[in-house]
């Protein structure tokens, strides 16, 4: 066991960049490690800030008893969503799996190695969140020792529950799609996310208000598993013991699959080599754009992590627009939001929704880094950067085609917009999408990272993805404020700004070359 602990300590130090900080002589390496650690610290501080906010919000409304049910619910959904986005495959195989199996470890430790790594990480996160809450409630809630004991149980239960449930859902989706002979990462990613989030989505949809307290107290694992019948009540020690029993049952099921069906798991989560036989005697070279686009599409679809992290906003735009189009939810179509100083029309809300969906995309910001160590193919090829950029940007545009088509239909038909107004909306939406796709590619060009070991390093945690997300948020805020001030004038102005920035970026791209290693 001590070997396993030593190895996990070493790998965690490596994951969190402590090893780079301590042993590297390279200035750049140390700088990168400091920045990464700084980022993690900032995330922890922000999370603690949010927990403090919840505590004070509940305290001021005399609802402190709901703190732990709400916190456990938020942790459950956040960690679960994160696990799915990171890819369940990471629990089974990773780049160091072959090395781990070659080490003198008991077989079960090798099989569970990645799960244990994830479990340690989630235990740390749960401990920080839950014990922050415990400290805040030391003097508020009666019976401190009970609170402490409940907190300890929660810290153990939540990570185990998250890992077991996400794994079981992902495996069930895989088995179902294999049975139906569907081998498509987009469908698999969407179905897994949808199945996991469906209780939360359903509760949000049926909730009387969009207050986080109602939504998260109704969707806490205790309530979902029927352990407590009233979501607004606090939970007792025996409720937690019941949840622990359910969790252990799910963990046992997961453990059984891992120990007895490990080979099946590895095969299920590895790419299939089956391809339709083709006539090998005839080859044909397509147009360069077509070939590069096809390569981009295959690269994109090869990673369930890439798909999960980038397909959400295009799908949200499609679902949202369909909801408007078929008037599924009157809340979306008829209602105007009345704030204290201004009334937001449903048309404005729809424009904002479309803008948020189209601008919150980071597909291109990791597209270059995602080439990884196969970047040598592009670097040694007689390709211009523009040719490559066109293919990568076109892929992101393609993801939004169904959603955008529906959004345009909604704007022109449901809101009965004039021809000029509709044309402005169409031009603005399309240029916004093109702009953020170009910005993402351009930022990735400036901050490429070809030497990554986990896809998450570039897709979610990459410097270019973070910068692009910040630019997206800035653009969304500016758009929201400007459209609110003057609808027609702003559309013209923003369209002009979009086109100007895009022209500038095209000009800059023509000057640039693919960043070398």
């Amino acid at each position, binding site marked *: 066991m001590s070997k396993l602990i030593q190895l996990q300590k070493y790998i965690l130090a490596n994951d969190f960049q402590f090893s780079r900080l301590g042993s590297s002589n390279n200035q750049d390496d140390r700088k990168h490690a400091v920045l990464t650690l700084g980022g993690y610290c900032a995330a922890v501080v922000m999370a603690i800030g949010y927990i403090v906010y919840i505590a004070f919000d509940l305290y001021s409304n005399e609802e402190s008893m709901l703190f732990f049910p709400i916190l456990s619910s938020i942790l459950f959904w956040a960690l679960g969503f994160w696990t799915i986005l990171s890819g369940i495959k990471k629990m089974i195989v990773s780049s160091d799996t072959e090395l781990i199996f070659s080490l003198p470890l008991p077989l079960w430790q090798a099989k569970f190695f990645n799960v244990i790594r994830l479990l340690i990480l989630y235990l740390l996160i749960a401990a920080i969140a839950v014990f922050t809450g415990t400290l805040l409630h030391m003097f508020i809630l009666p019976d401190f020792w009970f609170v402490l004991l409940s907190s300890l149980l929660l810290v153990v239960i939540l990570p185990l529950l998250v890992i077991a449930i996400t794994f079981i859902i992902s495996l069930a989706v895989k088995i179902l799609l294999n049975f139906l002979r569907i081998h498509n990462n987009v469908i698999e990613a969407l179905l897994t996310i949808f199945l996991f989030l469906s209780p939360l989505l359903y509760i949000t949809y049926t909730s009387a208000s969009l207050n986080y307290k109602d939504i998260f107290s109704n969707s806490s694992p205790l309530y979902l598993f029927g352990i407590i019948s009233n979501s607004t009540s606090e939970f007792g020690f025996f409720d937690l013991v019941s949840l622990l029993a359910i969790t252990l049952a799910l963990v046992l099921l997961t453990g059984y699959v891992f120990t007895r069906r490990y080979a099946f798991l590895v095969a299920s989560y590895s790419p299939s*080599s089956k391809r339709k036989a083709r006539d090998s005697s005839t080859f044909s070279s397509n147009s360069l754009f077509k070939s590069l686009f096809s390569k981009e599409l295959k690269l994109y679809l*090869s990673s369930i992590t890439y798909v999960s992290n980038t397909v959400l906003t295009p799908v949200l735009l499609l679902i949202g627009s369909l909801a408007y189009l078929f008037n599924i939810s009157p809340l979306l179509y008829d209602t105007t939001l009345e704030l204290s100083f201004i009334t937001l029309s449903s048309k404005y809300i729809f424009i904002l929704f479309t803008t948020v969906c189209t601008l919150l995309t980071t597909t291109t910001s990791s597209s270059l880094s995602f080439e990884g160590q196969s970047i*040598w193919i592009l670097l040694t*090829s*007689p390709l211009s950067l523009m040719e490559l950029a066109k293919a990568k940007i076109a892929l992101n545009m393609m993801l939004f085609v169904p959603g955008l088509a529906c959004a345009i239909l909604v704007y022109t038909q449901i809101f009965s917009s004039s021809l000029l107004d509709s044309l402005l909306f169409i031009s603005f939406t399309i240029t916004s999408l093109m702009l953020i796709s170009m910005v993402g590619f351009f930022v990735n060009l400036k901050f490429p990272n070809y030497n990554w070991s986990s896809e998450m390093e570039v897709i979610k945690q990459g410097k270019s993805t973070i910068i692009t997300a910040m630019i997206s948020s800035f653009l969304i805020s500016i758009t929201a404020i400007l459209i609110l001030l003057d609808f027609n004038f702003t559309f013209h102005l923003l369209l002009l700004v979009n086109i100007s920035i895009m022209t500038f970026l095209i000009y800059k791209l023509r000057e640039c070359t693919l960043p070398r290693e």
Partner: protein
Amino acid sequence: MLSINNLTKLYKGSEKGIKNLTLDLAEGDICAFIGMNGAGKTTSIKSIVGIYGFDQGAIELDGVSIEKNPQEFKQMVGYSPDTPVLYGNMTGYSYLELIGSIYQIDNETINEQLNTLLKKLNFGSAIHELISTYSHGMKQRLVLISILMHNPKLIILDEPFVGLDPNATYFLQEEMKKRAAEGSIVLYSTHVLEVAEKLCNKVVMIHNGEVVVNDTMINLLSESSLGEKFRSITAHE
């Protein structure tokens, strides 16, 4: 004609890399690039093919500079890396189609070249399987096919015989001779000195990032064997 002048590429914050590499290779030359692990062979090769930028110097092929006209330069080059990391999600077939499109090879040439190369390298139906299922040797063979199919003027191979089976090794040696005889320039790094003695007419030895031998094979072999020369240079290590 490949002309490399004072090529210097040092890694940030270290003295490792390559210093003042000067080399001229003419049509028909087969040059062996020899050195210990970490001597600077791969750094030099990656700089020549455009993977690494370099600190100073110039690289030209038939008067085309890699810095000024990278696309034109790369159109004339075929490169095989020491560890071929390819697009695992593509089949060998679609990878070759992609390369064909990038190098704008017409369909007639592609079919003529590929069918011959696939047969000679004994690829069979594996060409329709995902690259992620290939062994190291199969990936190596796929890269060789992809670089040979556009008839490059300069062929650069980084330790090309590692992982190849005896048939593929024989094919590659013969192909290198044939391509050189047809006017191509071949530059390859290797640790297999006996093969280099037989195959190459030029030799460059690198030690600690500096060129210590840059001569014709005939001249060098008149003094000692390649192995003896290598051992005498690296004796103090």
